[in-house]
Structure formats: structure tokens, C-alpha cells
């Protein structure tokens, strides 16, 4: 189990519940970062954050938030269809 802040780049991860206040979690969920979602941490950004890929979307997330979101390594993603 890792946090998004320390997860390796380019590896599919399965998100778990984030230890953040509800409005924050809602915001993340809106952008696709929800418990049970499969994401990939893509690269570093200016300012210490990271860019997280969820499906086709790209979300820039600050370090402080990344540190509160935990994930486990996902099994090989089953691409349906």
C-alpha cells in the first residue's frame, strides 16, 4: 500500500478511501479519483505535485493531497470490449 505521493510512476493503482475532508473527497471524486478507481501516477509537476491519469483524464494534484490518498497496486487492468 502506498500513497499517491510515493507511488511509482506509470504503474496502475487501485485507489482506496482518502483521509481528507468530505468536500475535498468530493472534488477528487468528480475528477475521477474515487475509491475503487484505477489510476496511474504519470509525472512530477512544478511545485512538487504530480499528474495523475484516470482513464483519459489528467488531473494535477498538489503534494499535500497526494499524501492523503492511499492505493494498492492494481491487478492487470481488464479492458472490456
Amino acid at each position, binding site marked *: 500500500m502506498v500513497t499517491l505521493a510515493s507511488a511509482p510512476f506509470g504503474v496502475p493503482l487501485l485507489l482506496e478511501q482518502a483521509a481528507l475532508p468530505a468536500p475535498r473527497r468530493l472534488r477528487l471524486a468528480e475528477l475521477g479519483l474515487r475509491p475503487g478507481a484505477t489510476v496511474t501516477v504519470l509525472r512530477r509537476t*512544478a511545485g512538487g505535485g504530480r499528474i495523475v491519469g484516470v482513464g483519459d483524464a489528467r*488531473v494535477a494534484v498538489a*503534494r499535500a493531497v497526494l499524501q492523503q490518498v492511499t492505493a494498492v497496486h492494481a491487478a492487470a487492468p481488464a479492458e472490456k470490449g
Partner: protein
Amino acid sequence: MTTTTRTVTRPSVPSCHGDGGGEIVRDGRPVVALVGSPNVGKSSVFNTVTGARRSVGNWAGTSVEVGSGSWRSGGLDAAVVDLPGAYSLDPLSPDEELTRDLLVRPDRAELPDVVVVVVSAADLARTLYLAAQVLEQPLRVVLAVTMGDVATRRGIDVDHAALSLALGVPVVAIDPRRGRVDGLAEAVEEALRTPVPARSLRPCGCDCAPGCSCTCCAAGATADAKADPTAGPAGDAAHLAGDAAHPDGGADGLDGDDELAVADRRFARIAAAVEVATSRRGSARADWTDRVDRVATHPVAGPLLFLSVMWAVFQLTTRVAAPVQGFLDGLVSGPVSDGARWLLSAVGLGGSWVEGLVVDGVVAGVGMLLTFVPLMAIMFALLALLEDSGYMARAAVVTDRVMRAVGLPGRAFLPLVVGFGCNVPAVSATRVLPDARQRLLTVLLVPFTSCSARLTVYVLVASTFFGAHAGDVVFGMYVLSIVLVVLAGLLLRATLLRALGHEDLVLDLPRYQRPALRLLGAVTWTRLSAFLRTAGGIIVATVVVVWALSAIQIGERAQEPVRSSAYGRLSTAIAPAFTPAGFGDWHAAGALTVGFVAKEAVVSSWAQTYATSEPADLHQPGGLGASLRGDFERSSGGHATAAVLAFLVFLLGYTPCAATLAAQRREIGGRWTLVGVGLQLGLAWSVAVAVFQLGRLIS
């Protein structure tokens, strides 16, 4: 195929779209019905196949619009009816009711001869539901698949042959938006040659012959519970009797579980078809948006790119706008003013105070407002371009750390960027921030963003004193503006707004896209007209007030009449406050006084104080420039450069303009606006003095 006589239903209300729409006339030709979900492009199909031979009207006794026309293509000559968009045959709306009424009828003879169901390749699962229902009825069906391009863009590929096999109907891919419906007419012709299929889909799955007494037939299409997983979609027998007796065959009238079971069977069919006929590719997004982002969000390259982009924006703005401004200015101060004077003379008001008011006040004011339109327009257009292309989000990421240092979220970036165009809409733009205290902070910081009105003064002054280096000085002002925003932010957070929380960046990065020019135009126009509306009246009023102040003489008439005017006296009184900053001269003070109300007025009123004419091209200040040089030399005791820089700094920071103050008052209230004014004056003055004193020591 027999020719049947049939009652012609005429609309009881005359249609407003032409003659006789809304009826099916049996004239010996086959009748083709067009059905499909909303938004699949059904109307485009109808328009394309009927060409000009169509009309639209209300179906008799309903408010539902139906199109009817003729389809002539190759060997096909048919009457077409375009039914309203319907997701399913379960009548949740009058549109769906009509569609259902026409497709589910006891009298076979009244059914359309062929039904073309239009579905979307980009949303097969959803748009096939209607098809699944239609396929339960004894109708000849042809499936037309649209939106292939959208599907391809989403990475979905549809195998039409496989789909045809899975559903048991002919499938044709078409592109009605580009007018390509080849193959559809042939498919319909071919379908007309086949017998009407006797088919249905019953939940009980039993093989019912006429006279069957299974629960389905007994209840007349309302039964379930025996949801038999082994009964597949194929091989169902006809339920002609059931259908005939109960035109309400289908989900309508069923109770919940039966409804679900019936719908489930349809979905099973759809799922099987989708499974077999569609495949997904990885999307192309990963490629080039991600590649650009590798630079655009990079810790080092990102900020550099951002600064370059901003620099380019401002260079473009100043260079492209200047000649247009010059032209407009010349137009107003020349032909328009002359024209006004002529008109007034003709009415006998030549030389009166009315002329002064009209020409030097109102016309001059409006003219001044107009000269800023090119500058604003270009600035707004460029900012809109950056937003629409998607780059703004990356810029927000790159500036996030700086934003957080000031205690603002990445989203506050946007109002501040708009502020560089004009502070007035920027203040309103703070509504993007959900938190009231963050909004307050941002509204107080907006005035420190150097708007394009201030730019005009920079250009004039910089061109006068720095010649070839004018552009660099102006750029430096913008950098300083950012510094002041940060400084003021830190100051506010340390004192009055200590309780402000932090919001960390979580921002979606949309794909880069080619900006839509029409959208750009619309946004630019919106902002521009908003500016003209809010600031326009105030600017014109300011010019009129300044004119009045300069016209009213107080006390002994000085050698330069302007000096002894109310305006001049006021400026002289204020001037000593600027001595420590090296420009304690009434001309400069006067310009700043006017600028307190509207920056756009600074240049012209400055010119007025010298009784020279305003330069048509700010890059070539001419007479005004010479006067300025003289005065700055004097007031600074020989350190003109330092004084000029101090002046520019003060101009940057003090208060933007009356229109901005009005906007601020609307957003944060009068009290906080006054706090803002105090903050601005204080900070601007302190930094200006510092600049002058330091500059004096250095030079």
C-alpha cells in the same frame, strides 16, 4: 404487397411549416418510418433522403411534430414519416406515445412497410433499446448507424456485419451530416422485398402458436416470473394473437418485476450485440497532449514556458494595438472633434462653455474610451485563446506554488490573469472561488495586477525616457506587478486575513484543443462590452469632471491658466506628498489625481496640464514627451531615471480606477474596498519612495 385504402388523418390544426405535414397518405407507395433516440442524427437522415420534398407539421390532435416527405433514390419511391425522437416505446412523453401508436397496432395493414431505426455508433448500448423493442413487433426493420466519426474519436470501432448478424436485421453505416446515406435506400428496397417477419420477444419464452393458453397469451403480454435464462432471443415464436388483442403489448401495463424482466431480455440482446460488434482502441489522447505536458508542467521548463507565453502575450498586445489606437485617437481628436465644433457653431454655440463641455469633455472622453478598445480586445482575445486551448490549466499548475505562497488556490490565478487585461471584469471573475474569504483576498489583490490602461501610461513614459529599452521597462513593470501581488497577499494574510485556510491544488487538465474562433470572438466580445458598460460611463464622466475642474479658475490667474484652475490648485496641494519619490511636481500629481479616477484619462489630462496636444502615437510622445522630460529632471534634482521609475511604480500600485472600485464595492462591500484603497496607496507610495531613494544613491 397490397395496396390498401386507408383513412387519411389530416391535422386538425393547420401546420405552420408548410402544407399537409403530419399525415400518412397511402397512395400506393410503401411507407417508411424513421425512428430513433433523440440526438442520433435522425433529422439529418430525414432531410438528406427527402431533399426538398418534405414538410413538417403536427400530428392530428397532438402537439407532436412529425415530418413527412418523399424518398426517391434509385429504384426506391417511398413515403417517409419522420417520427419524433424516442428513447423507447414506453410512452413517457407524447412523442414516445405517438411513436408507439404508429408502430404497435392491431391492424397490420396500418403499419409502416419498413421501419428505419437510427442508432449512434458512439452510444450503441443506449440507442439500441428502441431497436430492441421495435424488433419485438412484426415490422420490417433496417438499422442505420450514424456518428461513426464520433465513435472513432472515442476509440470505438463498430463491426456492422457482426451487428447485423447478432440482431438479425440489415445494418447500414451512414453519415447524414455530410449527406452520405448510400446503401440505405438499397437496404430499404431489399427489405421491402422480404416478407414481414413474424417475431416477438416474450418473457415467458414459450413457443406460442395462435390459441396458446400460456400465461403470456392469457394475460395478453403481461406476465413474467419464469425468466428462463436458457431462452435466447432467437427462436421466439409469434404472438400475433397476443399483440392483436393488446396493442399495449410491451412494458406498458406491466408491474415492476415484469417490467424489469422484459427490459432485461432486451438488454441481454443488446449486450450480446454490443459485445460482438464493438471493440475499443486506446485513445489518442495519450500521445500529443501528454507529450506537450511533459514540458508545460515540468518543474523547470514549465515556469519558463509560462513566462515566455506571458511575455509574448504582452508584446503582441502592445505592438499590435498601438497603431490602431493611434488611428482612433487621430480620428476622434481630428475629424470628429472638428465636426462637433462645426455643428455647435452652426447652432450658435461656438466658443461657449457648451462647446468646451461637448468637445473637450464628452467627445474627448468617448474618444479616449475608444482608443482603449483595441488594447483591451487584443488582450482579452489572447487570454481567451490561452483558456480555450487548454494552456491556462497548465499555467495554473505552474503558478500554483506561488499562488499558495500568497494563500490562494490555483483557481485564483484566473481572476488575476484577467486583471492584466482589465481589473473590472477580474473583480467579478473572483466568483470562481467558492470560499468567501479567498474571494475577499483575491478581490483586494486584483488592483495590483497591471491592467492595460496602465500600460498606455507605461508606454508613453517609457518611450519618452528609455527609448529603445521601452519594451523591457514595460515588461519589468509586469514582473513588478506580480511581485506586488505576492507582497500584498503576504501582508494581508499576516494581518487582516490571518484566518484564511489553505486549499491545495486539484485541477483537471483538459486535452489541448484548437480554439474555436467563434467562441473566442464571443468571449472577447462579452468581456469587452462588459468593460465598456461598467467603465465607459465613469470614464466619460471623469473626463468631463477634469475638464470642469480645469475650466474653473480659483484665485489669481496664473501664467499657465491650468495651474490656477481648480484642478491645478488641487494637484499643487497634493504634489509635496510625492517629493520623497522624486516627482513632487503638480503636473505629475495632477496626472495621478486623474488616474485615481480613470487611468485612461492620465495621458490626455497630462497633456492638458502642459497645454500641449496628446501624442497620437504613444511610442512617439513628441511635445508632451519633451515637457515631461523637463519636469522630471527638475523635480528629481537630476535623477530623472529614478524618479520616472518611481512614478511608474506608484502608478502601478496605487488604485486602479473608479470602475474597479465600484466593482469591488459590489463584491466585498464599501468597508473592505476602503481598506483596499488604503493598502494600495500605502504600498505604492512606500515602494515608489524606496525605488527613488535607492535609485538616487545608485546613479
